[in-house]
Every structure is written in structure tokens, then in C-alpha cells.
């Protein structure tokens, strides 16, 4: 069994004639430690697939299994615990908590688990992501690239097994985009994590181990590079 597996994953919005099939019986398998890029046109179902993998959206039909555990058969508290401990999510629009500082945003998943961060690991992340000297700042005091780095750090602080990134460079300029991508790759390699990343950028996609192309809610191509 693969580390991440979806079986006949389906998501339908609305009903009847106005129903929108965002995902149609999608079957995907991802191994541990893989770097997978998901591409496709707008509305192809990329983000929907990612949200299902992260447990933040429920499928209409089908299953998502992570490390043998069926995600949506679990209770809400188990699902929340998995999101805290096993999954790190990086959103396109950073989505930091505006009233918390950089440090507090980064440590948020651990604080929810009532755990203290490993000081060394935390410092390592800060250094890796170039956030030294900005830990007491609020998100509103940071640039877009800096905010995205904080979001990445937040996604990594709990050493999750899986990192899901939804167009992490979508709102960044090319310089910041390259930098963020490099950091993501470095950290998942460093910490042996599985990375699933959505991108419109072919140059980004080509850096992945595997590219899944979505079209009309289905996997159109699955290239193992």
C-alpha cells in the first residue's frame, strides 16, 4: 500500500443540472518521500484534490488513506490531530494569523498540541528560511515572500510526514518564487517528507519527482520522472 492513496475520490458541488464535478473518481498513489507536482488548468480539480489530501475538504464519494488510515472515516478530533501532526499545509495566500507574531505563527501547530518546539529544530528552520531577526514581527509587517516563508515554517515545525503546498509561489515574484521552492525542496529532502505541490509553472513542476496533470477533475497524466 502507498503512503498516500486515494480511491475513487469524487467531489461534486451543487445538485442536478447545476452540479459541478470538481473531482471524478480520482485514484492516486504517492509513496513516502516523493516530491509530486500537480498541474492543470484552472478548475481542473488540483486544489480540490490537495484539500482532500489535507483533510480540509470532504469528498462526496471515495476515500483518502494516509499511511493506511482512512482519513474521513476518523473522528473530527483524530482528523484534527492528523492535520496537526502529520500534515503541513502551505496556502497560496499565506493565511497567517494576523494577531500572532512570526514566532507564534510558526509554533502554532505545536502550541495546539500543547507541546514546546524543539529549540534546535526551530532555529534550524528559521535559518533555513531566512527569518532570523523577524520573529517578533506581525504578518502585516512582512513582505509577501517573507510571509510565505513563515507559512512554510509553520507547515514544517511539527515535522509532518506530508507537506501539501497549494501554489506556494503563486503570489510571489520570480526571485522569491525560486527561493521559496528551493527552501521547500531542501527542507523536505532534509527531513524526508512527502511533498505534494500544486503549480501552474512548468519550471517548478519539472523539479518534481513526478508530475500529475489534472483535467476536468480527473488525472489526465501521471508522469514519473
Amino acid at each position: 500500500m502507498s503512503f498516500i492513496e486515494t480511491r475513487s475520490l469524487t467531489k461534486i458541488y451543487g445538485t442536478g443540472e447545476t452540479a459541478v464535478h470538481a473531482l471524478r473518481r480520482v485514484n492516486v498513489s504517492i509513496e513516502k518521500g516523493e516530491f509530486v507536482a500537480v498541474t492543470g488548468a484552472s478548475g481542473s480539480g488540483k486544489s480540490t484534490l490537495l484539500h482532500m489530501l489535507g483533510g480540509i475538504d470532504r469528498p462526496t464519494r471515495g476515500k483518502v488513506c494516509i499511511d493506511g488510515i482512512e482519513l474521513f472515516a476518523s473522528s473530527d478530533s483524530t482528523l484534527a490531530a492528523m492535520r496537526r501532526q502529520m500534515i503541513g499545509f502551505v496556502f497560496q495566500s499565506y493565511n497567517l494569523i494576523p494577531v500572532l507574531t512570526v514566532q507564534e505563527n510558526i509554533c502554532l501547530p505545536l502550541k495546539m498540541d500543547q507541546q514546546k518546539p524543539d529549540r534546535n529544530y526551530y532555529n534550524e528552520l528559521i535559518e533555513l528560511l531566512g527569518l532570523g531577526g523577524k520573529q517578533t514581527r506581525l504578518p502585516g509587517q512582512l513582505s509577501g515572500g517573507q510571509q510565505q516563508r513563515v507559512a512554510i515554517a509553520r507547515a514544517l515545525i511539527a515535522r509532518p510526514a506530508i507537506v501539501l503546498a497549494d501554489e506556494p509561489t503563486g503570489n510571489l515574484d520570480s526571485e522569491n518564487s525560486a527561493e521559496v521552492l528551493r527552501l521547500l525542496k531542501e527542507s523536505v529532502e532534509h527531513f524526508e517528507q512527502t511533498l505534494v505541490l500544486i503549480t501552474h509553472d512548468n519550471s517548478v513542476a519539472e523539479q518534481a519527482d513526478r508530475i500529475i496533470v489534472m483535467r476536468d477533475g480527473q488525472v489526465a497524466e501521471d508522469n514519473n520522472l
Partner: protein
Amino acid sequence: MNSMASLAFRYFKVQKRRTAITVISMLLAIAMVASVGLLISSLRNMLIASKTGNNGVWHYRISLSDASSLTGTRADWQTMLDSDKIASSGLSDEQTYLRVSDTTNNYYNLKQFDAAAMALMPYAGRITAGRMPENEREIIISNASAAFWPDGDPLGKTITLMTSRFSEMEIVQTVKGEEASISAINAQPQEYTVVGTFERFRASNAPNISEAATLNPELSTGVTLYVQLNNRGNFDRTMAQLLASAGLESETVLEPHSGYLRLIGQGGDMVKYLFGGAFLLLTVIILSVMMIVIKNSYMLSVVEKTEVFGILRCLCATKKQIYAFVFWEGLFTWALSLLPGGLAAFAAMYVIVNQAATLGISALDGLRFAVPAWPFLAAASATLLTMLLSIIGACKKACAITPVEAFRGNDPYQGKNAVSITKMEMKRGRRMSIRQLLSKRNRQKNASRFRITVSAIGVSVLLFVFFAGAATAVTDFMGRYINKGGMDFVFASSHHVEKSADSYAALRADLAQYTEILTMQEVYPIEYMLNVPEDKVRAEYEAVWQQFYPVDIPFMSLPAFAELGTRLKSIEVLPVNRENYALLDLAEGSVDYDSLLASGSVILCQSEVFRDNAIMQVTDFGSFVVGDTISIAQETVDGMQQIRNLSVGAVLNATPWFAPERTHGFVLVPIETIDSYYEQGGNTNNLYTTGMLCIQVAEENLPVMQERLSERAKSAFGALTGFVFNSSFANNQEIVKTVDVINLFVYGFLVLIAIICGLNIFNTIWADLSSRRKEIALLRAIGMGQRQLISYLYSECVQYAVFGAVPGCILGFLGLYGVVQVMKSYLFIELSSPVQIISVTIAVTLLIACLAGATPIRRITKAAIIDEIRACD
């Protein structure tokens, strides 16, 4: 409609929830202000009806006999009376009295009126039987006093009465030093026909035998001129001018109908200060709460429309136009609230006032629902002004929104509500749980919203603690007037008809038809002094005496009759019958009734009731026991001292149920022997004429017996002649009902304040959570569990409640304490422990806050995570 008005109207319709909450809050405020005005009007009308119902609708009476020059006829006064400032005037002669019988003080003051004066009197509206008199040989008399006519109901009968003028009465001294008119010089017999009976405004069984009235259409001279002015200008000044025009000083002859004049706004500041002050105070309280709520609501509304205002500024809207936008929204809310608020006030007061009027509380006799226009106008204008003042802040906030802020959102590090992140803050943050940290930071970010909401809660809680505490103190105070364990009903001698032992026997026989009566006891109190040896005086008694009486009145004084080594104590000698003796709580060793009779010994009650306003304390003054000998003394008719040495055959452990309250200890004797204790040589019928028959009934039968005995007492002839019915049960019921009415109004008012406050909390929490939907969804996306999230959100609701309720409770209690300390100079009022009220208040506030948050919390926690994030992107 201009563009800003139509835009405001569009949003007014779109923001349904916010609009509904704001409209309801304003509607409640309008209803409450108008209700206060309607209630005040109804109460004022009730007081006016009471004054005019008792004394008539005249404004002034001029005493024609007080000045030597005033002996003229109506013709002499006609010039003054012809003034257009006088609406009506009439003459009366009130100096005649009619003797009903030979019994002392049994007479009527016969008042004669001409037709105009009679019209100003209250009799016509108070006729209970018969009709008004049509000439000077026909009289009407007060209803209850008909019972004192020696030959039964006088209605319709023609009677010859001795008629005399007051100036011709003779005054004599009685044995007790009182003055009493017992005969008249030059009294003439005159025939009168009693054509009707009338009732005083406050229907009462107390006789008013001093008044009869007749109409003398030809009355041309008299001693009093009654005047009613036209309702224009200052009455005092008008009367002074009129009298001056007739060459008279108003101070010597003029008597205003003071209470009535004050109530109609003349002759003093009562209307202004009492009614106006009460209206103003309550209106200010209501509108203060409303102002905070409305202000908060419009601030939230502006925050929600930040982007809209940013766009308007981008499109070069001026500040004036932005002001207009917010103003129109406020105006629509106010306009929409007016009619329902007015209707709600009308309906609520219609029900409440009419219900209160049916409760049978004597203080509310004649209460009728009044609907003048001024409460509605006052409510409309006061709430409009409050609304305008409330939206000033929102207008300024709307104008301050820049396009950049509108599109980028409200960064928490900028502006007044900046979140401060110092090293200390960081250090503290590390020690806090995520729930505490997020709550604190969000409070900092939305500090003004938090402050306004907490202020509204604080003010509401302050009002609740203050008024609920005051109502509790007042009801406790009034509750002390409730008599428990004493006599339930009393037939007391009116002192105007001579009584004997047979009178009470006849009364007993009459009342024997009521099987619900448990026991009856005749009470003929006789005052004595008891010699108390020093060694029998209880030490604690003196301390209680000092507490209730001024220091310079020593207890047990009057050494003139005291034996050496004793003190004198005032007591009353009362009779007890065999039936009630068996029911008394007697000390051990007390003998039986037959032994008392045989030995001539007595029962001693050493319990004294001290009463000062509503505070009562019972304490023993002496330590006599069964077998002791006591010495009592009384001054006789001829000024000698009668001393009796009596053996104590029984000692009471408690005051007997039939004991009158204003007493200082008792000696009870078998009723068969009571005559011997009356002053030697005195007329024992005087003893019975000042007595009473006390009745006890089982508790479950009190209401039915109240009704039956009241009805029986109305036809006060035969056995009941000369007896007046009083009911402790009715008095207690009146106190209970009065307390209920006070509590109804106070707690009704507070519940409405609480509703307004609750709506405000709901509004704030909903807006707060709605503005943080994305943040909350993110927390869930990152892994915050459902339970953790719900606990976090409810903890924020609790914070609103606690931060508002705690200072509100403290300030409310301090205010109440201060007022009670001031009131203690006038009333013995006590502040009960605040723990209960404060606990209830905080619990209710917490409940309201959690209920206010329940719906938005449920909605937000159940929504799909990604939908919430996307909706806010």
C-alpha cells in the same frame, strides 16, 4: 431620495440581522421611555382623582370669616367673581353641627352649599345609596357612619336632630384631662330627611361621622367661598390679583387646595421635581444603555462596510456624503422603530396598569390607564437625539477609512488598536495557552469594540444590581410590616357608641355562624404600672431600650409610684377566656384556669415588643416566675394610687396572639374578673367602649373569611353597630401585593435592559466571529480540534461577560450601599448580603453571553474549512 440615502437604504435592507438587532434595541428603548411616561401620567391622574375625589375640584377657598371686614354677601363679592379668570365659584356654610345622640362626640358637621359650590364638591360622584339633596332639609351622610344611628339604617327616614353652630358648643374637662364637647348651648331641634349616603374616595370602614352635606340653593351668606380658576397662568398670582382688586390681602384669607394644585402644576414644584425628575432619571438610564448599544451596532456596521467606504472615497465622495450615508442608516432604523415601539408601550402599559388596578391595593385606588401624547413625543425625540449622538463616532470612523485601509484590511500593527508586541508580551505569550493568547491579541486588536460591548454589559449589570438590590431592601423593609402569628381579624369599638359586655356577647353570637373561626378573644386593655424589683430586671433589656428610645428617656422611671428598690414598668391588663387560656404557651408550673379563678392569681407576660418603623424586637424585661408576687399600681379617678398585689399563677413564654402591638408587657386575668381591674369608681362601660374582639382563623380559610367578614361588616347594624372591622390578613395581603407590584415594575424594567444588552452582546459576538471566519477556518486547517475551538470561542464570550459584569457588580453594589446609608437616616432599611444578587447577576450575564455566541459559533465550527477560507480570500 438622494444617492447616499438610497445606498444606505440598500444596505439597510441587505444587513438583515444587524438591522433587526438595532431596530429591536431602539424599539425597546422607545417602548420603555414611552411606558415610563404613560405610567407617570396614569399615576398622576390617579393622585388627582384621589385629591378631587376626597375634597372636590375647587382650587381655592376664601375664608370669609377670618377678616373682620369679610362679612359680606355674594353680591359684595360679585365684581371679583365676575372676572373671566374665574371658571366657577360658590358659597358654603360649614359651621353647623347635628347631634345624633347624647353620646359624647357623636355629631355631624353639617355643611351647606349653594348649587355652584356643591358642583365643586366630590359628593355627586360618591353617592352609594339614595340621591343628592335638593334642599336644606335633605341631607346626605357618610356611608359607614350610617351604622352609628341609634335606630338602624337612617336612609329615607325623617329625623329630628339638635342643631347648633360650632361657636355655641360647650367644652368641658373630663377625668382624664381631655377636652370634649358634650353639649351645645342654644341647640334647636330641626327635621332632616336622610336622602343618600356617600363614600369617601378611599373606601374604608373607618367611620366619617363628622360630615353631612346639604344643598341650600338660596344660600346668600356663608363663611367660605370656593373658587375654581380657568386653567391659564399662575394661579397664586391670579388669586392675589383678584383679591387685591377687592381690597384684600391673600395671606389672611386664602387657602389653596394644595395637593390638587401641585398635581396640576400649580402652587409648587411637585410636578416638576417628582414626576419630571422620575421621568428624566429613568429616561437617562434607558437611553444610556441604548446609546452604547446603538453606537456599537453602527461601529460594527461601518467596519463591515470598510471596503464600501474605501470605494466611495476612491470615487471622491466627500466627508459630508459619508456622514450622510451613516446618518441615513441611523434615521431609517429610528423611523422603523417608532411605530412598533409606541404600540408596544401602549399595549404593555394597558395590560400592566389595568392589572395593577385590579390588585386591590389601596395605594392604587382609582388607577386608570391614561394615554396623553407627551410620552410618545418625548420617547421619539429623546431616542432620535440619542441615535444622532450615538452615530457620531461611527460617522467619524467611516470618514477616517482610507482606500488603502479599505482594500488591504485593518492591519493590527497600525492605528489606535495596534497590537503591541514587546519582549515582555512575547514572554507572556509563551506561557499562555493558544486560547489565551489568541483572545488577548484579538481583544487588543478590537479594543474599542471590546470596550463598548463590555461597557454596555457593565452598565446593564450595574443597573441590575442597584435596582434589584434596592427592590430587595424595600421588600424586606415592607415585609417586616407583615404581622405573623397575631390576630387575623378584629372588630374594634369605634368609641362613638357606648358598649357593654352584652355588646360583645351579641357580636360573638352573630359571628358564631362562621365555623371557620378558630377562636375569639375579647380585649379590653387597662393601663397599669408594674413594680419590678431591681434583681428581677434583665440586663439585656436596658440595652434594647437604649437602642429604640432616646438616651434621655430612662426606662422604668416615674419614681413617684415606685416602691423602694424597684422600678416601674408600664403594662396592660388584658382579659383571657378559658378557651384561649388553653392555647397559650405557658411556662412550666403554670396553673389551670379554674385555679386562677379560685386563687385570684394572674398570668404574667414579660415579653415586650419594641417597634420602630419596620424593625421589631421582642425581649423579656423581667425574670418573674410562677409563685412570685407582683405589685401593680394605677391612678384612680380621684387621683389616688390603687395598688394591687397579685400572685403569679402562670408565666407566658411568648406574647399572646390577641395582644395589641403597642404594649409594654401584659398581665392577663380571667375575663370573669376584668371589671375589677378597671379604675375604682369608673364607668366600666368605658372599658368596653374602648375594647375589641380579636379573631383567629386557620390559614387556609383566611381568604374566604376576609370576604365574608368584610361583607358582613358592610351592613353594620344590629350586633355590629358601633364596631369597625379591621383585617390584619388584608393589610398583609396589601403589603404582599404592593411588594409584588414593586418587583414587577423593577424586574420588568431590568429584564428589558437585559434584553437590550443581550442583543448588543449577540451583535458584537456575531460581528467579531464573522470578521474572523478565515482565521478560525485556518486554525481548524492547521489542526485545532473541534472541542478546543468551541472552548476557545466560548471563552471569548465569557470574557465579555466577566469583564463587564464584575465591575458592574462592584459599582452597582457601591452605589446601592451609598443610597441605603443615606436612606437610613429616614427609614430603618437594611442592605441584605449582596452575594445572592451578584451571583445571580454574573450567572445570568454568562448565560446571555454564551447564548449570544451559540448560533455564530455553531455556524462557524460546522462550516466547511475550505469554503470559509475561500469565501474570505
